[in-house]
Structure formats: C-alpha cells, structure tokens
C-alpha cells in the first residue's frame, strides 16, 4: 500500500500536508460573505407567490390588494414576462421550464407571481395579499401511472407530445446478457426505490440581481456552483433583450453548501434578473427553507429493477438494470448532455464479469423538476446502491459470506485498465487491498462470531459491506459537454515579482477547501509556499472559464489544470535559471523551490529569485512576467473506490436501529490534504446515513408535499450521525497529472448500501431479503410484522 507522500517541506506545504485551511479565518470570525450578506444601495426585495396545487389552471391573478400594502412596488406575473419572451427558459438537459406560468401550474410550490417591495417584510405581506384563482386538476404523482392511457398529457407545450415519456436510454449488450441470464445457475432479482431526496444545504438559494441601465451591465450575485456556465445560460436566455455575455458578470460569493443543488438555474434567479432589468434596481431574492425543500431540484427518485446472474459457487456473470426515472414536471437534471441517466452505467460495479444490460425510461409527473446530482457524479449513487444491494442478495442466495463473495469477484489490481461491460475504462484500483483493510480495521471475523452468538440469544446485529467504484472528473471533451460547452476546467497562475501568487479557477468551492488545496498543488509544483498563493474563484470577470464544482470534478479537472499551468511555469523557470546561472537547461536539477546545477548544489536559484528575474532581468527574446493558464481536458475519467463496513444493532422489541460502527476505507489516489480528504469523507458519510435511514421527500396522491420543512425532513444531527472511522489506500490515477482522483462524493455514494446491507443482514435470518431506503424503525417494524418476527 502506498503511503501518503510529502515531497515538499512543511513550510512549502505541497501535497500530502494536512495544512490548516486558509479560508477558515473569515468563516470563524463571521466575515464570510454569503449572498444574503450582499447589500446594495436602493436594493428591493422579492418574495414569490407559490402554487398550493400540484396541477391547476390559473384563472386569475389579482394583485390589487398586494399593491396597496405599504412598501410593495410591483407584482410580476407570467403575463408580464411573456411580453419580453422571458416566461420560459431552457433546462440544462435541453428541456424547457416555466419561469412564471401564464395559464397552468405543474407542481405544488411552483412560482406563480413575484412581489417586489422595499423590504423583506413588505414583500412577505404583499405575497399574502396576492389573490390567485385556481381550477385544480387531477395530477399525475405516481411515476408508474404516468404512462397510463388515461393519464393527462402534462406537456402539451412540447410539440407532438402524446404521452408523458421523456426519453429511453440503453447501455450494454442486451442479447449477450439475456443469453447469460437464460443459462445461469442462479438469478436474483430485486425491485428497489431510491427515494426522492433533497440536498438541504444549510444555506438556501438566492441572488442579488443588479442591472445597471446606464452601461447596460448586469452583475449577478448568486448561489451557484457553476458561475461561468450560468453566465452563458443567462446570455442565451436574455441575449435578445440586449444582455450579451460581456455585459454579464456572475459572482458566486461564499456558498453555504451546494451538493449539486446550486447547479441548476431556478426561476427565482431569472425573475430577479428580469425585474432588475425592468426597474433598474438591485433585486434581492432569498428562499426560505420551505421554498428550498419544496421547489428546488430534488435528487434520485429512481425506481430500479436489478437482476444478477451467476454460478452456484458465487461467480457473478451478468447484471440487468431497468430504471423508471421520475423527473417531475420537466427534465431539469444537471447531467452532461449526452448522458440522460448521468453515469448510471458505472453500476456494473467493482466486479469482474463481461455482460450487462441497462435501460431507463424517464417520465413527467406533477412534482418539482430535477433531478440534480446530489453529491454524486450523476446518478452514480443510484447505480451503486443497486449493484451493492443485489450483490448481497446474490451472496445470500448462494450462501456465501458477502465479503468473501466480493473478494472472489473483484477485478484484480493487475487487470487495470479494465474495460467495463457498459464501455468505461476503469483507470486503476486495488479493491482487494481496500476491503482487506476495512475488514481488519473493523475486526470482521470477530463480528461475524459475535453475530452468531447474539442470534442464539435472540439479539440482532448486522454487518453490511459496500465496495463501490466511483466515476468522477467529468469529463473528456469527446463525450462530455453541458449545453455544448465541453467539460474541461481551468487554472490561471500569476506570480508577482516578489514570488507571491494569485491563482484563479473556473470551479467554485462550497466548503471543499479549494483555497487551500489548489494552493497546495501549486506549491507542490513550483515550491512557492502554499500560504503565499492566494486562490480565487467565482467571479466570471476575473476567473478563467470553467464548468464549476460538482460531481467531484474539481480535483480531477481544475486540480489537474493547476498542476499543468504550474508545470508550464516551471519550464519557464528552468530557462530563466539556466540564463541566470549561465548553464544549459540540461545541467539543471529541480527540487521543490529551486533549480541548482547538477553536481554543484551551491549554484542555485530559488523560485523567488527566478520569478523576480522574470520581471527585472528576463532572458532576451523571452516574454517577461510569470504567468500561465491551462485548460485541462481530461483524457479519461478517474475511478475512486471504497470499501465500507457498517455494524448495526437492532432492538428486537421496537425495531430501533443503531449504527454501532462504520469503517470507511477510501481510495482517491494521491491525497492533496489528508485532513480535508478525511473531512470530506466524514461529511459525505453523514449525507449517506441520511437517505439510508432518515430522509425522503414524501408526497400524497394529490401532490401535496407532506414534509416540506426541517421539522419533518429529517436531516441528521450529531446524535444520529455516528463516530465515523476512516482510512485510505492509495492507487494513483495513471493519467491524472498528480495521480489524484476526487473524493467528495464517494462516501455519499458508498454509505447507503453499506447501511442497508447491515440492516438486512441483521434480520436476514428471519427471512427478510430487502428493505428500501430510508430504512426507518417504522418500516422495519412493518416488515418484521409481515414475517411474523415481532409480536
């Protein structure tokens, strides 16, 4: 196993050092600058009237009383926006979405009208006074019924639409896979539902749109994970009213958690821009929590049928996946364009077999649109849950220990790069080492003994494993784009004469610690101390173009760009050093922070001296200055992996479930900052236990959300969240400049099946083979009742 490597001194603080975060100073002193902290002169406030119905005709909107409320300046409806052709907008998946409706509302909490006022309080009072006359219609809520012959056609606005089907998608070889299934000894099947959930970042979404009429310029402060892409989208939507791209500046200030929920463009942003455009005043819109939970993009909501075929002695031979995807009223996913199911096809897992077939159909329903890649590289969470659950089902069926079965089926270390049955080339991995470390850490064999002893006494404990392969770092330009824009990312490094630098990126941190880790990458490559490298992101006027931060792509793309830009500068430094030392470049050797003459280490130029020379004494014929930019187009995705083991105890009387231990071994390649990587894993694990045991957006048959506040949408506290035990193996990515892979979402992806597997394992002796997440004590109780295991 490779150790975390530190090639630089602690003073330089390159890769491998647990450097304390540079951004923390402002956050711990209340000096962060989040969007609701932005205050501009003359600013007006917007509040949004929302639909109480899931599906209804709007017969009338009466603003009269609202306009009488002191402080209310205007009430804006879809009819008002229609005059400027701003009442519709494209989604990232080339579907369309209402900004404000002109005649029909399609989901509960949909935006219906906007109230503009001189204060937050007046806007709220105005909203209360807007009278909307609705004619409710019977909505389509159950995805399974959306294609029924008698289901209403929800999108007659889309030309030629005769049903609620959005798209069909396939991957793998159907014929060959079916053949293996037909001939297999053992086939296990499972229907499972990956519930609709919400990112519920503690900061909601919001913006301050500031259109300046005099110079026809829009500054948009907004909670966005992808400021550059947003600028382009605004230009595409509003170009026809004169807002062309050079006149738009998107500033993404500090973001209070994103997790994919701050990738899409929500109607509120567009309304704020339109109103600022029309009034010339800055418009602030900040969602409250109910709006955030009820209207912003959901995640998941995949109904999956998964099957595994194999031999009696436990060799996996093939898998089949069939998905029904509920997208709500419009396909507002945040996927790369060519991937309607995102990277779901990673679902063949960490196992060595050659046949798989996957298909998916997406449908419209009268629920909020989505779904976003919630801390997930586009539907990987759904795929991993399916494969890791069905692997356990298969192990149970053939009577093998799930750890042993996995060990016997893993792709071997020496077989990488490995071509998956759905066409991915896994870059690297060492799955056996990961699982072994996890088993040793948790004490697997002893736990199995304890489980048997406990069962004999009527006590229930379970051990659950998940050994997942992730796919992140979207992505190579041959396959990956969003609205046509290739999914590269960028870095620009400018070193000042005194050897201190500013580095700018096309990504945008929402808590991942970019200001520290990017500085460490540059420090690693140039030897300039990380503390002297200022990292800046989020301002489209200053940062190089990039696609933003989501899907664990920052390190694989912008992190690589940082290394590549720094290497360009090191090349330049070498030339300058050769000039200064009057030797040829070949005679020079590099060690972090300096070039010296081979065999004569006293003849040395530090990076600081070299940079200074680039401004004061640069070689003839060379461009002055010390600055480089790189747009990194990854040759492949990266494939982080993990081995997670969860131990649960279940109260046989109440069905209460307690996570006793959780060991997470992650392999994200070379580690930039162990402290931050570990922190990412901790956080992702809590976001993994959340859907596994607590969270789900629940709708009744009329489309009313039943848990649209944090009173009932159960975000885990420090009490539900166990003490996470973490560790790592290191299998560097062979194609990434610094061998890193990305880590942020691995734990969110890997934890739910480990927990579900543990709970099922605890009660498997009672004949229970599967439970859908979230597995609550109530749900488990009902199942135990059903099998007669609880009186």
């Amino acid at each position, binding site marked *: 196993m490779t150790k975390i490597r530190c090639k630089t001194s602690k003073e330089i603080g390159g890769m491998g050092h647990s450097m304390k975060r540079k951004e923390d100073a402002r956050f711990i002193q209340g000096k962060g600058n989040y969007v609701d902290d932005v205050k501009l002169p003359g600013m007006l406030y917007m509040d949004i009237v929302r639909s109480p119905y899931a599906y209804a005709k709007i017969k009338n909107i009466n603003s009269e009383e609202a306009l009488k409320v002191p402080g209310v300046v205007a009430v804006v409806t879809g009819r008002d926006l229609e005059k400027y052709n701003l009442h519709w907008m494209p989604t990232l998946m080339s579907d369309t979405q209402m900004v404000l409706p002109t005649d029909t509302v399609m989901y509960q909490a949909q935006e219906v009208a906007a109230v503009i006022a001189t204060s*937050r309080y007046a806007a709220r009072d105005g909203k209360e006074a807007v009278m909307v006359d609705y004619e409710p219609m019977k909505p389509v809520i159950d995805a399974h019924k959306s294609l029924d012959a008698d289901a209403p056609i929800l999108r007659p606005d889309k030309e030629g639409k005769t049903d609620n089907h959005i798209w069909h998608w396939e991957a793998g070889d159907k014929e060959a896979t079916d053949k293996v299934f037909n001939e297999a000894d053992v086939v296990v099947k499972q229907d499972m539902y990956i519930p609709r959930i919400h990112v519920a970042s503690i900061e909601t979404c919001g913006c301050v749109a500031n259109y300046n009429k005099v110079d026809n310029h829009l500054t948009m402060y907004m909670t966005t994970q992808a400021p550059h892409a947003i600028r382009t989208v605004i230009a595409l939507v509003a170009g026809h009213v004169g807002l062309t791209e050079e006149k738009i500046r998107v500033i993404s200030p500090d973001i209070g958690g994103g997790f994919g929920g701050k990738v899409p463009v929500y109607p509120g942003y567009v309304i704020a821009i339109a109103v600022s455009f029309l009034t010339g005043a800055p418009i602030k819109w900040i969602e409250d929590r109910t709006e955030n939970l009820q209207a912003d993009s959901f995640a998941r909501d995949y109904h999956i049928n998964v099957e595994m075929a194999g031999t009696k002695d436990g060799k996996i031979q093939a898998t089949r996946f069939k998905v029904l995807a509920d997208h709500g009223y419009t396909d507002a996913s945040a996927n790369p364009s060519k991937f309607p199911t995102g990277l779901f096809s990673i679902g063949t897992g960490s196992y060595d077999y050659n046949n798989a077939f996957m298909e998916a159909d997406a449908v419209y329903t009268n629920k909020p649109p989505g779904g976003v890649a919630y801390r997930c590289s586009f539907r990987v969470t759904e795929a991993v849950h399916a494969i890791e659950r069905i692997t356990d089902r298969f192990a149970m069926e053939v009577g093998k220990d799930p750890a042993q079965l996995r060990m016997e089926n893993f792709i071997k270390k020496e077989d990488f790069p490995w071509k998956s049955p759905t066409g991915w080339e896994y870059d690297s991995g060492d799955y056996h080492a990961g699982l072994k470390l996890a088993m040793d850490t948790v004490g697997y064999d002893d736990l199995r003994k304890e489980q048997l002893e406990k069962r004999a006494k009527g006590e229930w404990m379970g051990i659950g494993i998940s050994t997942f392969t992730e796919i992140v770092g979207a992505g190579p330009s041959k396959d990956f784009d969003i609205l046509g824009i290739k999914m590269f990312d960028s870095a620009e490094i400018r070193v000042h004469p005194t050897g201190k630098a500013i580095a700018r990126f096309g990504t945008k941190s929402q808590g991942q610690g970019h200001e520290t880790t990017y500085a460490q990458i540059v420090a690693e490559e140039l030897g300039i101390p990380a503390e002297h490298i200022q990292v800046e992101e989020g301002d489209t006027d200053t940062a190089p173009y990039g696609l933003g931060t989501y899907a664990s792509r920052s390190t694989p793309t912008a992190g690589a760009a940082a290394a590549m830009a720094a290497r360009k500068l090191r090349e330049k430094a070498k030339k300058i050093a050769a000039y200064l030392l009057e030797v040829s470049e070949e005679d020079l050797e590099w060690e972090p922070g300096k070039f010296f003459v081979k065999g004569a280490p006293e003849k040395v130029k530090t990076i600081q001296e070299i940079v200074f020379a680039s401004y004061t004494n640069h070689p003839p014929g060379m461009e002055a200055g010390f600055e480089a930019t790189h747009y990194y187009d990854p040759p492949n995705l990266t494939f982080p992996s993990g081995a997670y083991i969860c131990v649960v105890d279940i109260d046989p009387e109440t069905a209460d479930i307690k996570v006793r231990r959780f060991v997470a071994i992650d392999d994200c390649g070379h580690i930039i900052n162990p402290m931050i990587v570990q922190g990412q894993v901790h956080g992702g694990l809590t976001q993994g236990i959340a859907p596994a045991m607590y969270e789900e957006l629940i709708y009744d048959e009329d489309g009313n959300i039943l848990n649209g506040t944090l009173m009932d949408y159960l975000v885990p506290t420090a*009490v539900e969240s166990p003490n996470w035990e973490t560790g790592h193996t290191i299998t560097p990515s062979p194609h990434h400049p610094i061998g890193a892979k990305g880590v942020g979402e691995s734990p969110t992806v890997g934890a739910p099946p480990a927990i579900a597997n543990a709970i099922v394992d605890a009660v498997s002796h009672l004949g229970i083979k599967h439970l859908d997440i979230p597995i609550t004590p109530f749900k488990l109780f009902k199942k135990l009742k059903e099998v007669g295991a609880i009186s």
Partner: protein
Amino acid sequence: MIPANFDYSAPSTLDEALSLLQEHGDEAKILAGGHSLIPMMKLRFASPAHLIDINNIPDLSSIKEEGDSFHLGAMTRESDVEHSEALTGAFPIFADVTKLIADPQVRNMGTIGGNLAHGDAANDHPAVMMALNASVEITGPEGTRTVGIDEFFFGFYMTAVQPNEILTGISIPKQRGKVGSAYHKAERKVGDYATAGVAVQIATDADGKCTYAGIGLTNVNAVPMRAKRSEEALVGSDLSDELIAQAAMMASEDCNPSADLRGDEEYKRHLVKVITKRMIHKAIQRAK
C-alpha cells in the same frame, strides 16, 4: 418566513398582564417561551393581533420544594428544570423528559407552563404531569384557582385556561414510600415530537406493594392521556413482570393513535406497549 404584524406589550406585573388580556380578549396571545407560537406565526398559521409577553414578570420562574410538593413557576425554562438537581433528584423523570424536548437552545427559551398551556398532545410534559398527578394553577381576574391535571386538557389544543386567564404555576405532589419515575419517547430523530411517549411514576410500600402508579401517554391520543386501566392494574399489586406486561398491553389498547409520517396505528400501539413496560421497570428500578 416572517410573521404578520401585531401589537406587543411586555407587562412587568401579573395584574397588568391580566388586564391586557381582559382588554384584548380573543385577539391576544400570551408569549411565554414562544417556540411553539412564533414558528406558527412565521408560517402564518397563527396571526394574533396582540402579543402579551410575560417574560418580564418576576416570580413566575422558580422551582421550590414546599413540604409535600414541588412548586414550579409557569415560566420556568426547560433548561432550568433540566439543571435543577433538587427536582431531577426527586423526580428523575424530569431529566429524562427535558433531554428529549427539542434541543438545548429551544429549552433555554421554552417554558414548562407553555408546554402545558399549548394543549398539544404531542408535547411531553402533559404525560409527565399526569404520571406525577400534578395540579395546575391558573390565575385570572378573580384570583388563582387550582385544577387537577386530569381536568386540565379539554380537547384539541384546548385547556382549562380561559381567554382571560394565565397559567401561572404547577404543583407536583411527592408520593410516599419508595418512589421512582421515568420517561421515554420514540422519536424519528433527536428533538422530534414523540412517535409515542410514556411517562411513569411508581410508588411502593415497605413490602414492595404498589401504592401509586401514574402513567401518561404522549402523542397517541387527540388529547394528552392517562393510561387509567394500566394504573389500576398495578396499584395494590406486587408489580410482577407478568402484571407489568399486562398493564403495558392495556395502555396500548386504550390509546388512540392516528397514522402520520411517524407511523401507523399498529406501530404506535406497539411502541406504547414496549415503552410502557420498559418505563414501569425503570421507574421501579429507580425507586428509592
């Protein structure tokens, strides 16, 4: 989320508060800890025209041992109850229950009187007060009257407190003999309202015979509920495991839970059975 507008008074005496209540009638609401009322106002489920803030009235917040009983001022904060060694020493049930009410910040504001006066069967103190056989002091223009806890809760969010009255205190009798108490609720996560909760106080004589049994149930009935049949089964008995199991079964039969996101009727009855049994045992174990 922002409440609708209202007028606000913060009287510094009880008399002043009562005359404001008299003046504003139904339009007025009493503001105690505010952690039920203000969220409802922010969601605009409640829009009182006048708030009478009783936080500035001295003497409403106190925990006093008075001979055979403890007296709690209505404005005693949950956190004061939680940290009162005298009270949690005499009644460990208060340590159990306060830990499970919302969270520390809410407990710094929330008051024991407000928890009762809200009349919500989902709140925890109603069941506790039933188990302890407390009585409630209500002050109005005519003076102070005392109402037994069984006569306090009337219906859905309705209590014996009349629109011109204020709940001012709670009196908890000390039972004789060896006395123990315990509370637990099943909750979806910490700070949640109970899926089902059970409060128990048991007293035994020198021979181990049960001389007192109080059992209150949380959130499994439209109004806070006493498990009367269970109590009767225990009093006079020797508290055998079998009898305790029977008493627990009776509680689960007698409650009337309704299905919601927390669970269905069957599950809640089941929880009442299990938790009642466990809390009786725990109360007995703690008896001293």
